């Protein structure tokens, strides 16, 4: 649990972060979204004290972050940034080993952990451990950056525009990977982005910031159905609200018992993709199957449309 209490950051006369309070549940992904200059990065950087707040405080699991030296606090918190900041003079393995070595792990434990993480991120240790960052593709560098941030098994992972430099296809893959990893390790992840689609895709909770203020911090559906501020609806965009909403719900969640004639979709497919499938096939219902391929229910086109209408 991360508690942000009435935190402010002022530089001379400009207020960058203005009286923000937030509760972040453990084992969730929270996305802080906003335009540039909204104070979202500064808010993130105050959690690991790369920026010291002017007033207010941050508690992690009830403990004030100012109670220990900043560099020790940061070793317990994963940190990944845009452009990655990989150390260009160190190999992939040495990059990932940075925090474990700072924590004084012995060599065997460091090596085992590095190999484990490389496997998790689909990088063959034999091929990649000894490579230098400039020998990797953008997507591979990004994975090494996240692996490095997770190396010492932190409970909290902070990410500042982690996918900003990736092209759309690799970016989408990286987002899927992050969701997998978060589920696997149960890490509390806080991501900063300016991309609303990314926020909706990743976030269990989305926090919208503008001009240093936190406008709304809520489940993504709520941002669409109950925007707290005109700026929130403006940021979400009016054109495809209903499709965004559909993308947040999976077929399994609204499936009704019994099967239907129509294409089969897996229960984890988003309603948006089910809708696209139905339109493409000219069908009026779809069968929902589990991961094992066994039918568990069906979805009618009409109920998808009804679900999407909540947006208006």
């Amino acid at each position, binding site marked *: 649990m991360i508690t942000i209490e009435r935190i402010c950051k002022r530089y001379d006369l400009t207020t960058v972060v203005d009286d923000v309070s937030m509760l972040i549940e453990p084992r969730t992904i929270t996305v802080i979204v906003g335009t540039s200059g909204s104070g979202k990065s500064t808010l993130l950087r105050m959690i690991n004290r*790369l920026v010291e707040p002017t007033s207010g405080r941050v508690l992690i699991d009830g403990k004030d972050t100012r109670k220990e030296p900043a560099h020790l606090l940061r070793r317990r918190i994963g940190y990944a940034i845009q*452009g990655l900041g990989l*150390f260009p003079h160190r190999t992939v393995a040495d990059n990932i080993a940075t925090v474990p070595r700072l924590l004084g792990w012995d060599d065997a434990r460091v090596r085992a952990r590095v190999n484990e993480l490389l496997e998790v991120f689909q990088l063959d240790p034999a091929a990649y451990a000894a490579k230098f960052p400039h020998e990797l593709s953008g997507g591979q560098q990004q994975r090494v950056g996240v692996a490095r941030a997770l190396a010492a098994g932190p409970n909290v992972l902070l990410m500042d525009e982690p996918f900003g430099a990736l092209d759309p296809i690799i970016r989408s893959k990286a987002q899927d990977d992050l969701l997998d990893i978060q589920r696997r390790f149960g890490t509390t992840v806080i991501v900063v982005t300016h991309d609303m689609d990314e926020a909706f895709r990743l976030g269990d909770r989305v926090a919208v910031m503008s001009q240093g203020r936190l406008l709304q911090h809520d489940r993504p559906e709520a941002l669409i159905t109950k925007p707290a501020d005109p700026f929130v609806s403006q940021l979400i965009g009016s054109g495809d609200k209903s499709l965004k909403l559909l993308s947040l719900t999976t077929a399994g969640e609204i499936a009704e018992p019994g099967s239907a004639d129509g294409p089969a979709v897996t229960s984890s497919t988003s309603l948006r993709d089910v809708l696209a499938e139905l339109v493409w096939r000219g069908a009026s219902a779809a069968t929902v199957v589990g991961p094992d391929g066994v039918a568990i229910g069906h979805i009618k086109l009409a109920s998808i449309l009804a679900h999407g209408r909540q947006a208006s």
Partner: protein
Amino acid sequence: MQRIDRLGALLSLVAACALALAPLVVLKANRIVPGQPQALLDVLPAWTVLLLYGVLATAATVALRVQAPRVRLVVALTGMITLALAVATAANDLTPEGNRVLRVAPGAGFWIVMIALGLLATDALTRLKPGPLLRVVILVVVLAALLAALGSGFFDDLSIMREYAVNATRFAREARQHLMLALGSLAAAVMVALPLGVFCHRQPRLKAAVLGTLNFVQTIPSIALFGILMAPLAALAAAWPALASIGVSGIGTAPAAIALFLYSLLPIVGNTVVGLARVSPATVDAAHGMGLTDWQTLRQVELPLALPTILTGIRIVLVQNIGLVTIAALIGGGGFGTFVFQGIGQTAIDLVLLGAIPVVVLAFSASVVLDAIADLTRRVPR
């Protein structure tokens, strides 16, 4: 038609003019009178002269028309060796047995053709793009071959070697002094300039002041700086005899070392600042974000990444110092400059060369070695 190599054309033209207009060998009655040009044909057997000109003509043809760097390197080296042997043979033949007064010196033609061939060889080597370690190995081999050739006695009748024979013990002493002044002032400068560079990087407001001051020092001509230091150092030594007893005085090693130290600061401080500024801010931010302390970030991330640039600064300083130490001889600092200024005073050009040539060789070697070290530390492509 094959393209004509531009560098080859220039070098061939220069060498041809030198051969036509300037002598390869000069005969002098003693070490200070102007010499008489000697035609090689009057001294050496005709076939030897033909062989020499044949080798040089081949070198010129290759320089003009052949692009393969290995071939260019081989003909250039062959040309240099043949020319050196021819001139040494001429010296041996011209010098009567036991005559220690008569001097046979390589003429202007010799030096110009040698330099042209040397440039041809260097250019060919550069085109071969040898790795840093290989470059050092090549340097060592060339230096060893040069020393072995000079030690063989075959060149002993050449005028410069005559000067060396007379000054052999002093030569070793001045060589040590030269290296000590150049390397010692460099070491002291690194110890001061590196922290100063880091400080300037961290405190941008002081950067302008520090670099401005050092820039000003750099603009003082070396002779003037030696002069400026003489008075205060002499006063210091007079006021505190303890200082005088450890070697501080108005002339000699102390002002030379201090001046060299001052000249060394700017390139190292400047390159340290530039090298640190070039480290990506994202890399530094990530280092702090992962919990490296300021000191750890500096030592593990910033300095290693800035090291190639810092080493380039150190190379500049070392080459510059090796040259400047020569001038320090004027105020009694010692070093190879002693021979140069003595030679000028006696109008003995051979003695001047005895001081000047080792300085050039030293500076060139230092540059090759430090360049190789800088390349070895550059793990990341620029």
